[in-house]
């Protein structure tokens, strides 16, 4: 099976607060460290496991610039066979549709059976997978937490829906899936693994290589654009209880009793 996984570079946000920069044009990036978007990592692991079972190859692709090469290389260290970087000036400022159009052009250069994306990234949009599928006219399923390859023409997938339930579908290949966290346990990638792939070639494809008209993508082609970053006025929120621990506990007990919180 020829599998393509669309990946993205994202800041590591776990321990560190994301703050808006002084003029509100971006987040404060000085102290950030980056890695591959967590959802995309699950997708690459899933692709590798499918390839190990069914044969074929896994290609990871990213739309970005030279900074994004390191995440492509990391996923290759994890086990992806090939990496491609789609990079060109006209691509900058693309909205979701623009990114999807760029990816579509790359997809059409080779015959793929399965395309995976992460269910979302830090911007919480979760849009590229569905758009790419519609552009290619391929079937799509989002929030996939289970994949079982039936044969080379169809697969069975499970989608995560409310209440912890799972929606099972059968879907024809080729298709696009967006992958939810928890579908598998991604393998570890260490310094040694990355050193091993340090000299592998990652081809860079430009708008010309992909046959994309520059005005259709990038900022000029975008219909949705981000204007600024800000921290909203938090308004009222909760009444914060003050005082010594004993005083706070007293007050809390009063409230709990009053609201029926103690049976």
């Amino acid at each position, binding site marked *: 099976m020829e599998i393509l996984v669309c990946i993205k570079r994202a*800041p590591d*946000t776990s321990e560190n*607060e*994301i*703050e808006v920069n002084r003029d509100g044009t971006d*987040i404060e990036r000085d102290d950030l460290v980056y890695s591959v978007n967590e959802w995309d990592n699950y997708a690459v692991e899933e692709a590798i496991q499918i390839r190990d079972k069914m044969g074929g190859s896994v290609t990871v692709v990213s739309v970005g610039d030279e900074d994004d090469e390191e995440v492509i290389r990391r996923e290759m260290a994890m086990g992806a066979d090939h990496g491609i970087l789609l990079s060109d000036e006209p691509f900058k400022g693309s*909205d*979701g*549709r623009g990114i*999807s159009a760029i990816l579509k052009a790359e997809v059409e250069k080779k015959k793929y059976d399965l395309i995976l994306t992460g*269910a979302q990234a*830090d*911007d*919480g949009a*979760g*849009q590229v*997978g*569905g758009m790419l599928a519609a552009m290619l006219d*391929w*079937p799509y*399923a*989002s*929030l996939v937490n289970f994949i079982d390859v039936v044969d080379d023409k169809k697969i069975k997938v499970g989608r*995560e*829906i*409310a*209440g*912890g*339930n*799972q929606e*099972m*579908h*059968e*879907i*024809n290949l080729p*298709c696009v899936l*967006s992958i939810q966290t928890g579908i598998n346990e991604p393998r570890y990638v260490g310094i040694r693994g990355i050193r091993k792939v340090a000299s592998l070639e990652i081809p860079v494809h430009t708008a010309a290589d992909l046959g994309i008209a520059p005005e259709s993508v990038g900022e000029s082609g975008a*219909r*949705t*654009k*981000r*204007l*600024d*970053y*800000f*921290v909203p006025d*938090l*308004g009222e*929120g*909760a*009444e914060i*209880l003050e005082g010594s621990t004993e005083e*706070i506990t007293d007050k809390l*007990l009063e409230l*709990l009793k009053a*609201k*029926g*919180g*103690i*049976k």
Partner: protein
Amino acid sequence: MTQQVFAYIIHKAGVADDTALEMIAAARKLDPDASVAAVIAGDGTELDSVCNELVSSFNEVWKIDNEALAYVNAEVLRSLLVRILPTDGIVLVPHEHFGMDLAPGLSIKLDAAYLPDAVDFDGVEDGNLKAVREEYTGQVSTHVHCDISQGAVITVRPGSFKADESKSAAGKIVDKTAEAMEGALPAGARRFLEIVEAEVGDVDITKSDILVSVGRGIEDEDNLEIIFDLAKAMGADVSCSRPIVDAKWLEKSRQVGTSGQTVKPKVYMALGISGAFQHVGGIKGAPFIIAINKNPKAPIFQVADVGIVDDILDFIPELTDRINEMKG
């Protein structure tokens, strides 16, 4: 703005989802004068029941009624919607698991702009909608411009617009089935098989009155004991946020959130929970929410009624002792 606004309605067992009335509120915020049509797909009497409910809130209710839509498959529905929706319409869809499946592809097929996970609207100017989104799990917000002049598909975060219960409309039901089904059902490249239900746990938190809910602030599986002790003292049940289930410390049936259970308690204690919208989205019915978290900036303090800034590992055992003392 002259375009018609559409709101996709999710329903189950003959009842509209809470998001239905939130969509109306969102539409009115987008354009107070717009004509808003509910769009709904389903089968038979259950569908009719929801349509009758919706007419008092929407100007029109466009229904697609067919037995193949008894369980709505987003892939199938998308092709049907493309047949009936005008390409310059503004389509609002709830940003949840069905919406995420349907909406991105729909925007491509309608050749409309796409605005995902909007939490607020801030006016339309020269065909540009200014909206508010969040990024980085709610740590920062952004203003975005979306060119809706040629049509747009907008997904709206559930719970961000307060449901409009005014029922001030007198809409009519428009049966769009024939138009949608013209030329037969599209080929089923994705076929729905079944729902696999989550395993029933030992506790059904959806029926609990008092919930003591634990999040990442508990730090370690072995510390969960203090939560269970508190719950016992209060006569409450224990629930949790997603990270606790991901770490396999508690069963999925105890997870509160959009991908977990929806709960309607009277009192909800959020302990060591940051308050991401996916978690808060599972709390309905406006319970009295008490949040305890050592981070004063945690988003949970926005939705809680009362907050305590402290480490739950220190605070909870003392609270439990006091409650037990009080009960004698």
